[in-house]
């Protein structure tokens, strides 16, 4: 199986490195990719503010991860399934999920529930790597049904150390499941650097052991990500099984709002990364192609900001959830004891 070691890149640097092009993407596509990048960026930046304002709880920042999410999802059709980790919490927005739903999730509110089948977006996976077998199962299950849908599982560099990643990837390989294993290699698992995570020369090397081809792409290059994922999806639909994509980037923000990376991270390296962050790079690309006049940029940014304003208002307008929701959905037919528990709870709450 082929492992591409070289980092794929399409976007240049406006200087010595020339811009490339992705066949089949027209200007409208490029602007749609931009709109989506800005949407996620705005979601992320607003969320950090909302967290500081106490409007949402602990939040896993995905600043500079937008290109991986947007690029990969743009290569999918709506029938295809997305399996996000907490790092892709807002990826449902790319499928029309209301931002208020995701904000509610981070607010610990059941309004953050969604039916995965409504968007073909699985619930956010909080434990590391355990959704990889889910994605393998979904993809394989679709194939068994003769449907053409495939799945993408997003996970981090750290996740590759978990047994569940291994078992899921191996199942997918054996079952030739139409799956894209999308690894966001941001080089840190909280405070643990990649070299303490694995001795492999690249994460893409892991694919070999599963008989899966792999590609490496610049994770801050939305076009390269799109192109690599599109190829992986084509393989999947052609019945050739899974592909592993290692998207190489760098975590330029804290792991989450509770984290203080100053103890472990090199600020110069972070600064460098912030200078080449993914939204700005794509803006440069569009500008160089004459596609992004300032008014358009402002319009897109403004729309995203407005969407977030409405979303947080909607999320905050949710009334506090009724205690009934503690019990309601654990089982299709809740046991009799739940009625009793709820009645007792209501009585005590009323007394208190």
């Amino acid at each position, binding site marked *: 199986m082929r492992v591409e070691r070289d980092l794929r890149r399409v976007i240049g640097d406006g200087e010595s490195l020339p811009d490339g092009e992705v066949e089949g993407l027209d200007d409208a596509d490029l602007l749609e990719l931009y709109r989506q990048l800005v949407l996620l960026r705005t979601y992320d930046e607003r969320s950090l503010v909302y967290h500081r304002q106490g409007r949402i709880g602990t939040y896993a920042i995905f600043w500079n991860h937008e290109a991986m999410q947007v690029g990969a999802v743009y290569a999918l059709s709506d029938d295809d399934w997305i399996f996000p980790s907490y790092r892709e919490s807002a990826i449902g927005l790319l499928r029309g999920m209301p931002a208020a739903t995701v904000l509610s999730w981070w607010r610990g509110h059941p309004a953050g529930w969604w039916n995965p089948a409504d968007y073909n977006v699985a619930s956010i996976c909080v434990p590391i790597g355990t959704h990889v077998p889910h994605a393998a199962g979904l993809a394989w299950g679709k194939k068994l049904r003769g449907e053409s849908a495939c799945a993408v599982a997003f996970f981090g560099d750290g996740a590759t150390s978990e047994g569940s990643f291994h078992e899921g990837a191996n199942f997918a390989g054996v079952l030739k499941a139409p799956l894209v294993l999308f690894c966001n290699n941001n080089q840190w698992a909280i405070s643990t650097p990649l070299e303490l995570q694995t001795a492999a020369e690249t994460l893409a090397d892991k694919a070999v052991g599963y008989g899966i081809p792999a590609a490496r792409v610049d994770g801050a290059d939305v076009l390269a990500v799109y192109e690599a994922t599109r190829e992986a999806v084509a393989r999947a639909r052609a019945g050739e099984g899974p592909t592993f994509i290692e998207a190489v980037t760098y975590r330029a923000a804290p792991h989450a709002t509770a984290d203080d990376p100053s103890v472990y991270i090199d600020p110069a390296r972070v600064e460098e990364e912030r200078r080449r962050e993914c939204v700005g790079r794509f803006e440069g690309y569009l500008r160089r192609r004459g596609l992004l006049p300032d008014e358009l940029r402002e319009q897109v940014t403004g729309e995203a900001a407005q969407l977030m304003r409405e979303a947080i208002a909607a999320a905050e307008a949710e009334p506090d959830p009724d205690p009934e929701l503690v019990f309601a*959905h654990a089982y299709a037919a809740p046991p009799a004891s739940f009625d009793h528990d709820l009645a007792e709870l209501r009585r005590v709450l009323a007394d208190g």
Partner: protein
Amino acid sequence: MGELTLVEAINDALHHELARDPNVLVMGEDVGLVGGVFRATAGLRETFGEDRCIDTPLAEAGILGTAVGLCMAGWRPVCEMQYDAFSYPCLDQLINHVGRYRWRSGGKMEFPITVRMPYGGGVRAPELHDDSPEAYYVHTPGVKVAIPSTPADAKGLLAAAIRDPDPVVIFEPKLHYRTMRGSVPDGEYVVPLGRARVAREGSDVTVVAYGAMVPLAEQAASALAGEASVEVLDLRTLKPLDEDALLASVAKTGRVVVVQEAPRTCGYAAEVAAILAEKAILDLHGPVLRVTGYDVPYPYWKLEDAYMPSVARVADAVRRLLAF
């Protein structure tokens, strides 16, 4: 009605359920080509094809995790864990996903997974082929647990599990896989989850048991004939528990011995005793006694008779209770 062994009854249930519902599939280690190491899945692959009876890689978390995804694609997977003690790698998926996912989808998505596994000791097997892990499963929210003690129940409870919209774990007493025969209704047959069975009526003492401990309790009851009238209550489903049946029996007898093969501490017998201590305190004429495995690793098999609850230990507990 045919006379089947317990494992044949399971096989029969699987055949009927796969025939009934094209969304049901069976997966696990060695379930396909060879029909399972106990032959519980024998013939399924031949009848339903290799897409409905799948030999998986050797990875229990992978099996259960993949099953979660299969549910999302509309399947109803029946996962075999080859043995009790080899199911532990799947606990992570069970606790963090299988038992939680329905709730997290606001009740919108179903995870009708059945996990079945042989459990328990007494079969002179090498280490780690003898565990009774039901407490780990019962403690897990969002999961149901049933343990049959007869071939008919093995068939009927498994069918109920497969049809249930929620995840259900079935522990099958491997001790009786081939040695216990019983009449089993032909065709489709369902024993509803959540209903206990009075295996033997009595009036002095209730022995509460499930799985392989039920025949043992019955033998103890026979051994005590003349001394005491022993009721044997076969719980059949541990979660949801048939509390009414439990409380009704205790209201009648006032004396309870709970038998469980698993290690004592925090085992299921504790739950039964706790329910009685909460809801039947005025009915109890004496202590609730537990006869259980000990709080030690399941021993090498030359020691297993000393470890496992025995007829003598159950009878002794009944006698102590009567003398209280």
